[in-house]
């Protein structure tokens, strides 16, 4: 598929920030499953952008502002041509051993509840186990915006039974690791089937490592494996490692964040899509 992405992140300050530094994981990498075309990173104020790659293989831009800033918008846009791989991530770009993704992090720390929940699935062979885990989370954690924050842990979300895609991913990761299977967080974009091209936030799902297959994408918020409607942007041990923007501002007060995101099928004229 040819997926067109236009993603703008705006930080506004009540009191102008003297200086802002941000690390941006907003730019997808090309692979056998996704060809990135005409990707642009733009800002609406004078800022320096430096491109690098982190240890997880993500493309990172570090942004530094050059003058007092009341409002800063970073806009990324471009096209990604995707191929369906039945959820399997093409091998060859991995920088880290899968074992690294057995690590606990603050957001994916396991507790009794996680271990009991995960144990329901452990009898199945690996692939089947993860499919069932995904379905189990899809059924146990209702999608609801506004009840969780980015600091909610997997264990808290499972106990609460509600959350957003990021929370579903964390629960999946914690449970997979609990079963001794490497798992990681993916932030990216989803071309929705319901025609809602304008979205409130970027998407997130999980990948688990299966010995004979490699990394496989599981989207527990939607209960399916990743397809050619998914664009992978960044991976990490959890949300924090793959977060689209992490930043600090000096002297700025009252920070507010607004996100504008449009993900559409580039082969279809706007407005033609079916629900």
């Amino acid at each position: 598929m040819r997926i067109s992405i236009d993603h703008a992140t705006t930080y506004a300050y009540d009191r102008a920030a003297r200086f802002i530094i941000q690390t941006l994981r907003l730019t997808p990498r090309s692979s056998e499953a996704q060809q990135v075309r005409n990707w642009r990173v733009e800002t609406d104020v004078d800022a320096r952008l430096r491109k690098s790659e982190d240890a997880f293989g993500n493309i990172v831009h570090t942004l530094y502002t050059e003058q007092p800033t009341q409002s800063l918008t970073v806009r990324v846009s471009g096209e990604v041509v995707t191929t369906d791989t039945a959820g399997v991530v093409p091998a060859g770009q991995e920088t880290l051993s899968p074992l690294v993704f057995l690590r606990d992090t603050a957001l994916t720390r396991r507790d009794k509840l996680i271990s009991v929940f995960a144990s329901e699935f452990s009898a199945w062979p690996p692939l089947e186990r993860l499919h069932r885990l995904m379905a189990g989370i899809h059924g146990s954690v209702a999608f609801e915006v506004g009840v969780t924050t980015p600091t909610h842990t997997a264990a808290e979300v499972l106990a609460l039974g509600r959350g957003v895609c990021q929370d579903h991913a964390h629960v999946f990761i914690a449970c997979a690791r609990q079963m001794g299977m490497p798992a990681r967080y993916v932030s990216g974009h989803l071309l929705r089937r319901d025609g809602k091209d304008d979205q409130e936030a970027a998407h997130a799902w999980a990948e688990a490592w299966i010995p004979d297959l490699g990394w496989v994408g599981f989207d527990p918020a939607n209960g399916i494996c990743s397809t050619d409607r998914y664009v992978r942007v960044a991976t990490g041990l959890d949300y924090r490692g793959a977060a689209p923007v992490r930043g600090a501002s000096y002297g700025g007060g009252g920070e507010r964040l607004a996100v504008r995101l449009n993900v559409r099928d580039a082969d279809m004229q706007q407005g033609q899509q079916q629900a």
Partner: protein
Amino acid sequence: MAFDEMSGDGGGVRESYRGLARWLADAPEGLLQARSRQAELFFRRMGITFAVYGDAESSERLIPFDVVPRIIGAAEWAGLEAGLVQRVRAINLFLADVYGAQECLKAGIVPAELILTNPHYVPEMQGRRPPRGVWVHIAGVDLVRTGEDGFYVLEDNCRTPSGVSYMLENREMMMRLFPDLFADYPVRPVETYADMLLSSLRASAPEAAGADPTIVVLTPGPFNSAYYEHSFLADKLGVDLVEGRDLFVDDGKVFMRTTQGRQQVDVVYRRIDDDFLDPLTFRPYSTLGVPGLMTAYQAGTVTLANAVGTGVADDKAVYTYMPEIIRFFTGEEPILKNVPTWRCREPEALKEVLSKLDQLVVKEVGGSGGYGMLVGPAATRAEIEAFRKKLINDPDDFIAQPTLDLSTAPTLDKGELHGRHVDLRPFVLSDPNGVRVAPGGLTRVALKPGSLVVNSSQGGGTKDTWVLDV
């Protein structure tokens, strides 16, 4: 009877202590006590001087000081030094490999999972090489002794080892209190430590920094228990003591705010743990670090001493593999011994440990400072049983070692000299030109009769450590 630093196994005074024995024999009664009181007074006064930075360190400084030096002869030291250099060289090579090609994991020298899931392994460092390739600029290696040739490494401290200020201050105090004793003894100077450290840090600066790199000491601030040492070291090095908020990162470089504007920083001797260094990479809400510091570090524009991720080399579980690590990376037999250790993660070892808990020391893999450990012979039945449960629940979290009969050294207690158990932490410096050991170290002494726990948090004191020239 434990080996005594002064009288060995009881057959008379050992060579290195003969001068002290003569001096003690000639000393008028009550002299040591008088000097000991004087020392306390001096330290208190200095404590007050230093209290200008806050109150925390005046209590910190008053860790008991024993006026009887611990003396190490030239030949013994030569052996220790060679062993320490070998060990720290291996640790640097090990870290370069863990964060690089991982040959030692592929060869099965250390289980890959133990390293890659270790809380102190920092994935963000994978594939990175710190400026000039140095990982552990400063190591503090804890040694104990059980006999004439029986030195054992208890722990390799490769993160932000502390205690060097005691080494320097204890010497200053001793020279003030016992000038006559120094006149008779060829004691190697430790005062050169600051110069050694400064030259090591300079030599480890990024190449672009030029001949006169800007160095700072980064402290978490006055509320940190080692703040006194941070300010002491900055002072001795003649460099700025900074907190995270004094630094910022712009365009991939680290800068310090000064009254003359921004100044680029080339080397950060950081006394902040990895987790707190950079809120954009690690713990997000930490205000102790510098946002973007890792970006600059990965761009190679700044040296962090020690490098990020070195904790994986001093982890207690990894420690047990150190002899194999030394053989693998140096091709040599380890000069210094490891304490024989049971890894409770291995079922056979766990079984054996559980069968003789009352004879062993059991330590939490991630613990430090003498907390979270069981000293079998000194524990009550109830304590042992409580620990048994912990061990069965989380065997991976524990290692066990025999209780070593640590050497004793004469120590002043109520006007009399008694043997008290001691350990030794020498400080080892690495830079691109090699590995060096400061001729001395921190001797910690368990002041309670018979006690084997030397940690200051558990009632330990310190002594000056003399390394002799001949």
